[in-house]
């Protein structure tokens, strides 16, 4: 057992509760996070010698609060900002010192319960503040990993493949932005909730994709990131059980992640869905993902984009082989997805589903409709799909042309070579 990793593990479990409780105390989430980090640093110094305390949450809370009081005392003379909190704190301190325990009276905030169960609302408020719209997307991602998931600056930097200094600056800037904008530490109102929740889910899915779309060399760190995102998603389902898209996102991530082991070949090369060894798909994640999808749909609200994408992933997860995939169902789900979240990429995927469902004509119609989209004109897969569709329709000359164009846009040499081979084969039949 590695003692540092043990301290980090305890920290991961307790940090969000601690930051939330300290935010209630000092009324500034950035400052609260700094204080929490000081408590963590103290734990890293002391626990290796003294052992892990029986109640690590209470230990961290006590240290964090002590630091808060120290800071309040120091700042009192200089800053009006903390004057009021400080005076309240002093009153509370006197009372608690009289009973001989700092933990007794509490300052202005409730103490974290042993085991770290502060009121859930505060921890959830922390998620919402970390993903607040005043912050840039990348800041939201970094702050969520730091404050909610309890990752260190170094771990976040590794996950995003940037130097730690970059993440450090990103986090301090984000904290400053939140303070300057006077973002209140509270749950969004009912009217704000849909948009605010969408911002949170976006961050979680962004983290997942950062990890999931990793290439070979970096796989191990990035996979951790994807697992972290799934975990955040599951925590959200516990907090917001009535929100179908939260369950939908968890289902989507778990069903995609179930293919982790199968999607990379022995030399780190990507393996396409059609060629994946389905015995290597993770059955536990599939079962959990299908259950989450079930919960999302059972809530009886119109299906949102995450739930629809999860439903598509579920069709693949249930298919014994690529050939036996229910492509009609997938095409119908893409059509529904195009209604709620229209995008040329969704249309491209719908065309693929239609092609496999023996609807090459219909697929070509869909492709024609997005042919002039600037993103599609730069996207090699558009030409690749178009080439397949034209081949199926017996229009080999046009197919060869589409595949050659696709080859020109291919991001890797390997893909370029494959596309050129297919183009040559098409030209031969023309």
């Amino acid at each position, binding site marked *: 057992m590695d003692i540092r990793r*043990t301290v980090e593990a305890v920290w991961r*479990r307790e940090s969000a509760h601690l930051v939330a409780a300290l935010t209630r105390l000092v009324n500034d989430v950035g400052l609260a996070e700094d204080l929490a980090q000081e408590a963590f640093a103290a734990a890293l110094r002391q626990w290796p010698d003294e052992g892990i305390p029986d109640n690590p949450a209470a230990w961290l809370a006590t240290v964090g609060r002590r630091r808060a009081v120290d800071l309040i005392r120091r700042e009192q003379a200089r800053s009006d900002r903390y004057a009021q909190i400080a005076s309240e704190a002093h009153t509370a301190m006197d009372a608690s010192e009289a009973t001989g325990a700092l933990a007794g009276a509490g300052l202005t905030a409730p103490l974290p319960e042993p*085991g770290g169960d502060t009121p859930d609302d505060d921890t959830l408020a922390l998620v919402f503040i970390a993903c607040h719209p005043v912050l840039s997307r990348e800041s939201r991602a970094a702050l969520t990993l730091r404050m909610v998931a309890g990752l260190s600056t170094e771990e976040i930097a590794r996950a995003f493949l940037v130097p730690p200094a970059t993440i450090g600056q990103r986090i301090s800037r984000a904290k400053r932005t939140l303070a300057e904008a006077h973002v209140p530490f509270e749950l969004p109102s009912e009217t704000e909730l849909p948009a605010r929740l969408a911002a949170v889910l976006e961050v979680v899915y962004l983290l997942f994709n950062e990890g999931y779309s990793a290439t070979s060399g970096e796989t191990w760190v990035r996979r951790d990131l994807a697992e972290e995102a799934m975990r955040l998603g599951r*925590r959200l389902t516990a907090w917001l059980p009535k929100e179908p898209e939260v369950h939908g996102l968890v289902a989507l991530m778990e069903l995609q992640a179930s293919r982790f082991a199968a999607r990379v070949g022995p030399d780190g090369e990507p393996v396409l869905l059609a060629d994946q060894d389905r*015995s290597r798909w993770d*059955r536990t994640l599939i079962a959990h993902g299908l259950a989450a999808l079930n919960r999302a749909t059972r809530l009886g609200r119109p299906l949102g984009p995450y739930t629809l994408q999860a439903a598509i992933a579920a069709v693949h997860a249930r298919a014994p082989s690529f050939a036996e995939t229910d492509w009609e169902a997938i095409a119908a789900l893409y059509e529904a997805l195009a209604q709620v979240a229209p995008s040329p990429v969704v249309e491209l995927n719908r065309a693929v589903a239609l092609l496999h469902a023996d609807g090459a004509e219909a697929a070509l119609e869909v492709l024609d409709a997005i042919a002039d989209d600037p993103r599609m004109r730069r996207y090699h897969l558009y030409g690749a799909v178009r080439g397949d569709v034209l081949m199926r329709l017996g229009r080999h000359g046009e197919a060869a042309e589409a595949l050659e164009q696709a080859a020109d846009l291919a991001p890797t040499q390997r893909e370029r070579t494959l596309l050129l081979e297919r183009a040559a084969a098409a030209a031969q039949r023309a």
Partner: protein
Amino acid sequence: MKVMVLVKGTPADEGAPPTTELLEAMTAYNERLVKAGIMLDGAGLKPSAHGARIVFQGGTTSVVDGPFTEAKEIIGGYWIWQVSSLEEAIEWARQCPTDPSGAYGVLEIRPYIEDEDFGEALTPELKEREARMAEQVRAQRGEA
């Protein structure tokens, strides 16, 4: 990483119904695991009196009906957790509520094997058979 956590007790403690207090504590603990986002699956097993052991020894096979009074430890249930390290699983397991009247209990944490852990022993033929088997399992579970 995915780990299985095996819940083990002694034959002596088996069969005694848990107190309401312990059940409440266990429910609260399970809720914490779910809220922390690490719980993937879990289940409890009936006492070993309802089970049987098939013993292979020196080329012979014998069946021993439960209860397994001779056993040192008996599995009573399991969880499947997704955690970031073995240490994290240990820290969670340490928080598991215990029965103060129970003589002896063990939580055993075992990381899932990854494909690469098999090495050369897993031949392409075996992989192929495993793939077919997984298909059948899916079909039987109604997932196919």
